[in-house]
């Protein structure tokens, strides 16, 4: 960053970068702005950009008209629940793969990864039929279990790439110093492993929250998380733009903010460590 850049060039680049950034961000900005308009103003022509009568009525109405809280709860339970369960299963697996690799470990890891490359339609029919027969259609339990399985390979892999960076020597040094197993875990392992676990957790909450294939196919009124709920809100023409914008804004805001904090983790998690 120490390069000397002529001020004029820097300002020019700044203007271009901001213009491009705002164009890409515009659909989101427009949704947020529309959520504060009345339905009439939402379809005004020409559109009002900032100078309209700001109102919160849409947010109140979304709550009243639909069981919005139920869908928020579903989203939270499914994304958090599936992530936590995946971590409970994935941490020991990644730990073993990183610190006690056996002859077949690498093959197993690659095989796990390959399950992630399976297009979901390849198993749509049996999963749908099994869910129907087991009474899991449109249940939060069923979807949480499914999301856990969908994201488990990413969890194991991401943890593995983090754990691999913990030097094994340190563990041995702690053991040589006569540290008991418990304090080895608490004082040596945990501090080094926690950042990786936290990153993994963050990325997987985002992925589970935004998943839209299984949620659309396996849920209806009861278990629909926000991704499926918003889809059901697709009244065709201009009538409910403001209300849907309010619902959409609430649905994307928490994940957008989480996402801003997880840029690095995103790269690592989604490329399976191939780009850091």
């Amino acid at each position: 960053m120490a390069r000397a850049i002529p001020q004029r060039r820097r300002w020019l680049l700044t203007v271009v970068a901001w213009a491009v950034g705002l164009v890409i961000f515009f659909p989101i900005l427009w949704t947020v702005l529309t959520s504060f308009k009345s339905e009439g103003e939402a379809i005004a022509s020409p559109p009002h950009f900032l100078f309209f009568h700001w109102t919160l009525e849409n947010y109140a109405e979304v709550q009243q008209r639909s069981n919005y809280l139920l869908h928020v709860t579903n989203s939270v339970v499914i994304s958090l629940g599936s992530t936590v369960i995946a971590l409970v299963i994935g941490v020991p697996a990644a730990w073993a793969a990183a610190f006690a690799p056996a002859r077949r470990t690498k093959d197993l890891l690659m095989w796990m990864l390959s399950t992630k490359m399976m297009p979901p339609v390849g198993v749509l029919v049996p999963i749908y039929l099994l869910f129907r027969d087991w009474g899991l259609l449109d249940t939060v339990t069923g979807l949480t279990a499914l999301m856990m399985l969908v994201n488990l390979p990413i969890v194991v892999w991401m943890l593995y790439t983090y754990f691999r960076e913990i030097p094994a020597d340190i563990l041995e040094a702690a053991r040589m110093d006569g540290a008991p197993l418990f304090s080895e875990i608490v004082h040596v392992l945990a501090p080094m492993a926690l950042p990786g676990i936290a990153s993994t957790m963050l990325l997987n909450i985002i992925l589970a929250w935004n998943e839209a294939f299984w949620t659309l196919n396996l849920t209806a009124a009861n278990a629909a998380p926000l991704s499926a709920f918003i889809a059901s809100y697709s009244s065709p023409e201009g009538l409910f733009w403001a209300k849907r914008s309010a619902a959409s804004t609430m649905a994307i805001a928490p994940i957008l903010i989480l996402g801003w904090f997880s840029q690095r983790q995103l790269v690592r998690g989604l490329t399976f460590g191939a780009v850091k």
Partner: protein
Amino acid sequence: MLAPSVAMLVLWMAVPLAMTLYFSFIHYNLLTPGPKSFSGFSNYYFFLTDLAFATALVNTLIIVGGTLLITVSGGIALALLLDQPVFGQGIVRILVISPFFVLPTVAALVWKNMLMNPVYGVFAQIARGLGFAPLDWFARVPLLSVTIIVAWEWLPFATLILLTALQSLSEEQKEAAEMDGAKWPSYFLHIVLPHLARAITVVILIETIFLLSVFAEILVTTNGGPGVATTNIAFLVYAQALLQFDVGGASAGGIIAVILANIVAVFLMRMIGRNLEA
């Protein structure tokens, strides 16, 4: 300690996949009860010779190819731009990567109604303001419209990965190139692009895996139509299974989708595997 994960994934993947394979060889429609009989390859025959399949295959390739074209070229340009020392760099970066975190169903509806609507949409308003006739996006160019939405969602992914790769290009190299008076195009061609080659490959492969399965954006905006104009393979299998209840036919389609994805996956796995050695 790997055992629980492996066991669960075997149950989750191998069992349903085996069931799909089995279903694909029997006559099985949820609407016609009765014994399910062995059907040989007839499900595959009917799926593959259905006119909708050819269209869906082409549509799938167009969605994947179009999105890759936009996101990779756009991603390189954006990465180069974001690597420059501009004022408010962090905020611009946040603006650019935000679409990735938007729920696919929200993205699809926002684009369809608020941007591409031929009467009230922002694009139509701009077109009218400039004196052009507004374009009825989903009626006239439905596949392009879907592709644009998907590309908007994936552009941040490409940008972020390419930017990460670009930032590992050392400052010395950048400075050396400037001091040599190297002209920008040759600097880009001979230093930047080769440096990004690996990241570009990763972007292409990973996006392809996900883009072969684009579904929510189609369901929410066009429902595969008009006709089958925006039906891709994933959507065709869904329609066969959950709208026509043809378990056998949908399973055959599912197996074909798996085969298509595997062709890409083999290349991706090889790259990641090679990285494990390093």
